[in-house]
């Protein structure tokens, strides 16, 4: 008995080298976490701290002088409200459209008995490695007649081939062929199987896809710059960018009035960065399970 325990202890016991390793590793992990969190934390704190303190450039760990004017001013800033509403609208539209294109196609491509499956898959995969590029895309948007409309952002992003492959791999691994065969014997059509059997057990992949598409549309910037014209249609990211640029331009000027304006703009910048990143930052810890699932499913197939 004693002997067994001793040998067990020996098995579990860490060597001195392992202890040094563990200690070092813990330090590295803490350091990495701090480096990752601090810049984001700083911006949030700066958005609620008196700009006078922020502008001294000292390290902030908590709001030393709470100053919420930035937020009330941000609400008065019309392009911010527009930007926010536009981004929400584009994101909802994008998720709806993308789910309707990606999920049925992914299911169809997961069916081994689909004639021409390999060829169709190749047509999709090829576009991951070769594309028309910026200008032909811009001309396509114009010639389809969606330039300067919501569709100019939503439709080009309707399918991401990477997402399609992730989704297809999910169906590959969760829908056993026996299930399909049994349903076929019961006289179930392909539509019937997809809508009544495949979809109801695929809530995970639907959530993963919604999350992937929503994140990418929420963060979209360059496409908006290229495919939209009117200021009141611009999404949040473009509004934020313009504000940061406005700030840089006024750096050369001087005078008391400018100093005051500068303070407001500086504060607004932190406020808008915070406001634009906040929804995803709040949502992702709850959705991360799906997120990791998605990346891992995708990796299985590569």
């Amino acid at each position, binding site marked *: 008995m004693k002997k067994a325990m001793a040998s067990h202890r020996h098995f579990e016991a860490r060597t001195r080298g392992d202890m040094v390793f563990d200690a070092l590793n813990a330090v590295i992990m803490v350091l990495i*976490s701090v480096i990752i969190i601090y810049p984001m934390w700083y911006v949030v704190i700066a958005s609620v701290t008196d700009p006078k303190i922020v502008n001294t450039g000292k390290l902030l760990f908590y709001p030393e002088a709470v100053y919420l004017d930035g937020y009330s001013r941000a609400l008065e800033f019309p392009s911010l409200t527009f930007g926010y509403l536009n981004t929400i609208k584009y994101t909802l539209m994008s998720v709806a459209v993308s789910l309707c294109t990606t999920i049925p196609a992914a299911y169809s491509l997961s069916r081994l008995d689909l004639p021409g499956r390999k060829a169709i898959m190749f047509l999709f995969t090829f576009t991951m490695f070769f594309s028309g590029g910026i200008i032909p895309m811009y001309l396509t948007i114009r010639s389809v007649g969606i330039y300067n409309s919501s569709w100019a952002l939503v439709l080009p992003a309707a399918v991401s081939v990477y997402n399609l492959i992730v989704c297809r791999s999910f169906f590959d691994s969760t829908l056993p062929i026996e299930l399909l065969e049994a349903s076929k014997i019961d006289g179930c059509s392909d539509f019937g199987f997809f809508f009544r059997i495949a979809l109801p057990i695929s809530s995970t992949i639907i959530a993963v896809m919604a999350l992937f598409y929503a994140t990418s549309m929420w963060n979209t910037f360059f496409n908006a710059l290229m495919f939209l014209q009117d200021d009141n249609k611009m999404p949040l990211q473009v509004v934020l960018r313009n504000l940061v640029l406005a700030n840089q331009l006024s750096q050369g000027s001087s005078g008391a009035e400018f100093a005051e304006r500068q303070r407001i703009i500086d504060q607004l910048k932190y406020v808008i960065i915070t406001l634009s990143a906040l929804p995803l930052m709040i949502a992702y810890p709850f959705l991360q399970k799906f997120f990791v699932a998605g990346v891992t499913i995708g990796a299985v197939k590569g």
Partner: protein
Amino acid sequence: MSKVLGRESTLSRVLRSWQLYVLLIPALVWLFTFAYYPMYGLIIAFKDFRIRAGILASPWAQPLLKYFQQFFSTSIAVESIRNTILLSVYQLLFSFWVPIVFALLLNQIRGARAKRVVQTVSYAPYFLSNVVLVSIISVLFSANGVINNLIVASGGEVKLFTSQAQYFRPLYIGSTIWQSMGFSAIIYIAALTGINPEYYEAAMIDGAGKLKRILYIDIPLILPTVILMFILAVGNIMTVGYEKAYLMQAAGNTTVSEIISTYIYKVGLQTAQYSFATAVGLFNSVVNFVILFIANWLSKRFADISIF
């Protein structure tokens, strides 16, 4: 006879699967409109494109490669190609291994909860947009920002990080590592979780410490994933994130920050030289595709791993 039967069965299989094709229609419409139609649009690189006339009616360029010649006769061609390649190669060198090391170290954390917390924290920045990322860089690294304040406090001089050319690449690559380390590590962490614990048990009985287990078990077993990721990274070497490069551009750093894609955007959309910009873009895509092909061929040949 059997050939005819075989044919019929293919046709009838297609007909029988009509519902599956219906499910594919929306994605196929997207594919042809937003992926293949733009590829067809690439022919304007060989034409004197007039937006009124459209692609077909615009006359062919005289000579056919006029716009490619035009590109290579400018000094910006060499500069932007050089900047693109250097930025991606440096990025690959400095950032590719970081998520692998992170995954290996994280995998050794004993507490399941601590492990999960660190992992969750690690991919938070992935959800930030490029605009937010560059804005954070610009506030932290500005002349009166936190970083410069720390430098001055420790006896250094204020450095103009966001406007001077020598800081562009370090900031670009550093922020990429900061933003994507945790996300890129997910795949390696998944591969590590899949390793059979018996290997570790056997190694521990033989007295192998953690470092040895990482070197002789973890690394060899995740190597296929590493190679696969490496091919993909090499295959995207010419498509280095132009959005971030564009956002980080300042008057003082264009000598290093002007990459092919930012140049295409400027000449193509800001000055409307459509054919010229398309030619530059086509050159970029073709080079990228060739590099991907070579990388894939090499890995197929020597490691039996391939993406197509």
